[in-house]
């Protein structure tokens, strides 16, 4: 099948070779004095499981993943249901939704860095007025609130993505089952729960999968806003792998961490596909 050759070549060069190299790298480490990679056996893996910072990064990543997935899913669906009507002006709103998606995440991070600035950030100001947070508490420099501060940026940028997918899904649903349910005596809430959401399940599954994978490799916002701090409170797996690889020049250990990240993504994604019975 010669027509497959270009595709296979691309796949080999950009996916399969790096993957194999990554696995190979996780059994090696860069030796600065020798200026080369040396074989270290399972040392990286053994270190990893005893590394407190790895476990901390894993827990940060999973909290970030779970909280944001739930928030963006629920918020996205609510906004989609709201905007999926023919009220004048909502068309414009639906169009505006895509705006946040064209902003590079690093820029969004910078924006929220300013918004949450302890000196002049508008969010700090508002929270102070509301009495939620004292203006002497810098959001991004306090370990209990730093991750929440980053989550805000992610929610702002990516909830519209959910909304767009859900609106597209809602618009493609047939109207008749809703009408039939109405005549069957169902209330709006019952129709949503028993008819609309089940019909949307495939769309929801796709959105969860795309966003879920994105969230598990979270990097940009932490990198720009907190560099993982304060302490290790916003270090995700990706950021930790980056630090080990490029700041500490521990290529083997960095490769090991990213490999674990990959396994987690594959595992969760496939479990999800299996349990939701999504057929592509």
């Amino acid at each position, binding site marked *: 099948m010669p027509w497959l050759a270009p595709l296979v070549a691309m796949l080999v060069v950009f996916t399969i070779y790096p993957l194999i190299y990554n696995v190979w790298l996780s059994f090696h480490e860069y030796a600065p004095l020798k200026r080369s990679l040396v074989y270290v056996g399972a040392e990286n893996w053994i270190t990893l499981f005893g590394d407190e910072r790895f476990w901390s990064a894993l827990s940060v990543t999973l909290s970030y993943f779970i909280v944001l997935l739930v928030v963006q899913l629920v918020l996205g669906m609510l906004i989609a249901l709201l905007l999926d009507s023919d009220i004048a002006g909502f068309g414009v709103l639906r169009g505006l939704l895509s705006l946040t998606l064209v902003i590079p995440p690093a820029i969004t991070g910078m924006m929220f860095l300013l918004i949450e600035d302890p000196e002049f950030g508008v969010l700090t100001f508002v929270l102070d007025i509301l009495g939620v947070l004292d203006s002497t508490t810098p959001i991004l420099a306090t370990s209990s609130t730093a991750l929440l501060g980053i989550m805000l940026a992610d929610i702002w940028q990516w909830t519209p993505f959910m909304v767009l997918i859900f609106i597209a899904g809602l618009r493609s649903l047939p109207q008749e089952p809703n009408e039939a349910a*109405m005549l069957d005596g169902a209330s709006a809430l019952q129709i949503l729960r028993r008819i609309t959401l089940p*019909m949307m399940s495939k769309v929801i599954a796709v959105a969860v999968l795309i966003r879920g994978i994105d969230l598990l490799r979270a990097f940009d916002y932490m990198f720009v806003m907190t560099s993982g701090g304060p302490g290790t409170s916003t270090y995700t797996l990706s950021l930790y792998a980056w630090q080990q690889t490029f700041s500490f020049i521990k290529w083997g250990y960095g490769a090991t961490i990213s490999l674990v990240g990959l396994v987690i993504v594959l595992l969760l994604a496939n479990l999800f596909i299996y349990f939701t019975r999504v057929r592509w």
Partner: protein
Amino acid sequence: MANVTYSRVCKNFGSVKVIDELSLEIKDDTFVVLLGASGCGKTTLLRMTAGLETITNGEISINGVRMNEVHPRDRNIAMVFQNYALYPTMSVFENIAFSLEIKKLGREEIKKRVEETAAILNLTDYLHRQPKELSGGQRQRAAMGRAMVRDADVFLFDEPLSNLDAKLRAHMRVEIRQLHDRLKATTIYVTHDQVEAMTMADQIVLMRNGIIEQTASPDELYNRPASKFAADFVGTPSMNFLEGSIESHNGAPCFSNKGLQLPLPPDCPAKAGQAVICGLRPTDLHPDENGPIKGVLRFREKTGAETNLHFSSMDNHLIATTSRDQEIGIGANIAFSIDARRIHLFDKNSERRI
């Protein structure tokens, strides 16, 4: 068990008038068919009855209670949609049980009623299946089951058979009608198929451009169509129309068109000299060597039981339906007679029946 009354009902979509001051009374337990070509407003009228469309003007009431502002879920109306509208994520059982669950009936009660309904519709073996695993006819029955299981006051059918093949359609016609005879619920059935209307209805409401052309029993609609439109719409092949005038021959009224003279019954209400359209049903034309309608056979159309003879007579194109035994060659001269009582006369200007 309900009377449905429409009084001066109007429906506009923007500037387009779809239903215009329509008034109609549907009596308890009757099977009414709304018949008309696509776009005549029949489905809109049905959806307004169900509450799925707002009413621009006028009033729809069920058992004397104004329905305009009543939410669809509170109207106690069951509807079968054209594309069935089954809940795609539920099994047939769940589809039928849905309305009962909403009513918060007990598990046992629901099971019993769903199974009874399924038995009537021959769906018992398919209760666990998803809608996508059913054939068209089974989906249709599942949709009917969903409507039947409720004790609805009014049943609405929106062209429910239009997606089925001809054989199944004929079968379902009988089933739906038998179902009605058994349930005795007021039924409003929308179709563009005159055969469905004729075979199923107690009363046919023939609609045209948002107004009622004629309300009548199937027999009356066929035998005494109120207008040229009604005469043309019902019957296959369509009625033959000839333009002409009424003349008096020795005191007896007769219809005259070019060289053709057709004697009319003596009590014919048409006045001499009146410009009329004369309607002759193809099935009422009988081959008769001495008949007044003479022509040349142009085309033969065999339908199995009968043969439709297309012939030209004095520049008119006419069709006669004869028995299949008639073997006449193309180009042969033929002649037909008609019972004077079977001649339909319409005023040329108003196109209403005389």
